[in-house]
């Protein structure tokens, strides 16, 4: 464990990413304390520039809502949707991939055809269709993102399982007569978990981007403030009041970058063949 942390810490980008993520999570948790009111309240004159008014340090948007309040509350939605949809995608993708890789044969063939079916549809288009049909809400957005992001998980897990199941310790477990589910859960999966964790961190970043893109197009949950919504609602003012879109856009950029950096650090730390590459 110590060597893992040491390798992770050696990647300076990953540490910076982690710090940013911790800060964003802290802001998200503390949002109701920082800005007790609703971020939808129209509290200022519209189109206030940043740093003009102490009460509105980042200015106000097209109808006078505080941009900083929106940013703080928006972090909750972006992180929540990113994490939950990734979790759902893992819950679908990991078991499917494991079963497919472990049993092989027609089970594998059938499950992989299903996976490919989803992979051949452009994921963003599919997400738009799902959200439009189900009406935009946090639930439908999580579902849409999960549906478009589980196939890569399934394929990755399948590939790893295919190689792990031929190892001697797995064969030994099978020979000693352990039930199948026990072999998969205790012998196979623990040994494929590291690439999945790396993938999950990157998926969370992608999910945040997807949610922002949906909100930008007006397909976000209309009852919650999110960064993508803020970018979208300021879009038409981008030539004159650029900050309305730019500030939440920066928040998305920084958070997604942080998650990617962390993913890379995790990859370094988990992947023994690369260990020490940077020294």
């Amino acid at each position: 464990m110590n060597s893992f942390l040491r390798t992770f810490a050696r990647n300076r980008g990953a540490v910076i990413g982690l710090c940013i993520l911790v800060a964003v999570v802290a802001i998200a948790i503390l949002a109701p304390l920082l800005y007790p009111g609703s971020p939808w309240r129209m509290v200022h004159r519209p189109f206030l520039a940043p740093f003009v008014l102490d009460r509105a340090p980042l200015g106000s948007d097209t109808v006078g809502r505080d941009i900083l309040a929106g940013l703080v509350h928006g972090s909750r939605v972006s992180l929540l949707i990113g994490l939950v949809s990734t979790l759902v995608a893992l819950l679908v993708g990991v078991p499917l991939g494991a079963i497919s890789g472990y049993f092989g044969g027609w089970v594998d063939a059938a499950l992989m055809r299903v996976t490919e079916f989803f992979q051949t549809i452009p994921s963003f288009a599919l997400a738009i269709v799902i959200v439009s049909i189900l009406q935009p809400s946090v639930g439908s957005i999580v579902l849409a993102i999960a549906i478009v992001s589980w196939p890569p998980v399934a394929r990755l897990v399948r590939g790893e399982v295919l190689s792990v199941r031929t190892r001697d310790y797995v064969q030994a477990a099978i020979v000693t007569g352990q039930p199948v589910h026990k072999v998969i859960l205790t012998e196979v999966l623990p040994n494929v978990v590291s690439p999945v964790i790396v993938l999950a961190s990157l998926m969370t970043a992608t999910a945040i981007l997807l949610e922002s893109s949906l909100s930008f197009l007006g397909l976000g949950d209309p009852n919650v403030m999110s960064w993508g919504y803020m970018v979208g609602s300021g879009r038409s003012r981008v030539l004159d009041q650029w900050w309305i879109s730019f500030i939440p856009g920066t928040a998305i950029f920084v958070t997604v970058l942080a998650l990617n950096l962390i993913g890379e650090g995790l990859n370094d730390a988990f992947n023994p063949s690369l260990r020490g590459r940077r020294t």
Partner: protein
Amino acid sequence: MTGFNKRELLKAGVAGLAAGELFFGLSPLANGSITALAQSPKRGGAVRAVVHPEPSSLMLGLVQNTPTQMVAGSIYESLLKYGHDLKPIPSLAERWEISEDGKAYTFHLKRNVKWHDGKPFTADDVVFSTDVFLRELHPRWRPVATTHVERIEKLDDFTVRYQLKNPFGPFILMFELSTTPIVPRHLYAGTDYKTNPNNNTPIGTGPFKLAEWTRGSHIKLTRNPDYHVQGLPNLDEIYWQIIPDAAARVVAYETGAVDILTGGTVENFDVAKLAKMKNTAVTGKGWEMIAPLSWLWFNHRQGLMAKKSFRQAVMYGMDRDFAKDVIWNGLARLASGPVSSKTRFYSDKVAAYGFDPAKAKALLKESGYKGEPIRLLALPYGEAWTRWAEAVKQNLTDIGMNIQLVTTDVAGYGQRLSDWDFDLAFTWLSQFGDPALGVARTYVSSNIAKGSPWNNVAGYSNPEVDRLFAEAAAANGEAARQELYTKVQQILVEDLPVAWMLELEFPTIYRSNFNNLIKTATGMNDAFQDAWKA
């Protein structure tokens, strides 16, 4: 002859005689620059205007949505036009008479009118259009023709008479371009109208002809040299540009690629920005016939909405001044009731509802509301409407309501209203100049039917209101109608079947060197007959 009719006749005569003067820019209504007043019209030049979305067809007899009206309005004509005060102006008819009992309308047609293919225009075309073609196909003319018109007859080649079954006050407004566009009999009689190949090459009597239509790019109209008003039109060409993105339309105007941004084609905050540009004029005129009025539907079938105290709480809880000033950039007027102040028979002698959150809270308590979620359906017509829904949601949240905003696409919105699947919903509808045409439909109980988003979707029913609307439509004489309409407005405003929001303005933005653009109640639909470029 009643006084009203004489006045109409007189006005028609004067307008006919003095056509030259009118066209010489003496009317200051649409002139962007004062210097233009002293100038005489110049011949020649082209104008580039924006139409959005692209029309699906230019055959105005078949398609009457706004983009088609704007473009085809220069190709086709009807018997009359209407001034900003909704008084009739001659177009294909040079004068007209209304019988004393209000049941016979006689139109005398212009004699030197030719279709774009050179064939002469006669009373046969008018009878064919209104008695056959439009009676079969036009969603607004058809019910009027069926219910109120006894017969349409040609008295001679240039005289047509409409004999009504009963007096119908708004009948004089039915000769507006999009309601009764006159189509050429020689090309349509005896054919399948919808598949007639002439639909792609519309032939009208208007000041411009269709020259070229490049889908997704532009529609080009050229001057009709045989137009029936001597010397007109002044312009040589009209280019209707199709630019799908709102921001791109703004840039197109800023860079000079287009000269006219028609109402509603740019977002509200851009209007203020563009208005500051040099050589630019902005006018809210030209929408008097439509007189867009916006309101919130209450679904009276839900327990709470059926309570007047609840409806009043919503009304008092909304900051309509904020919506007007911030969301519509001041381009609106607070609606006082069901009839727009631009529409005939408007009355301001009604109860007033200001922004009063304290009163709203008290009324909400009185209604027995206990925090149940209330769905607010937003109108998917662009950014302003989305922001407005968010602002109203915030207003109502502040008085203690639990509002869930629902957003959909246009089809989903129509579906939900048609199925009565909403609690509160935004809308705006046209008034068509007269309460009998554009107002009664929202409130009379005979108009409660699933399947349309434009009828009485609230489910409001009040026998007294039904009776007053019916009597007012059939009453003969303006005074009698005014009295009945004032009464019904008072009842409705007290009862609050829907929450009226704003009388909207869809400003037209244009270069000031274009003169005589918007001179009628249908604005851009007939803007180019005598427009000229300085």
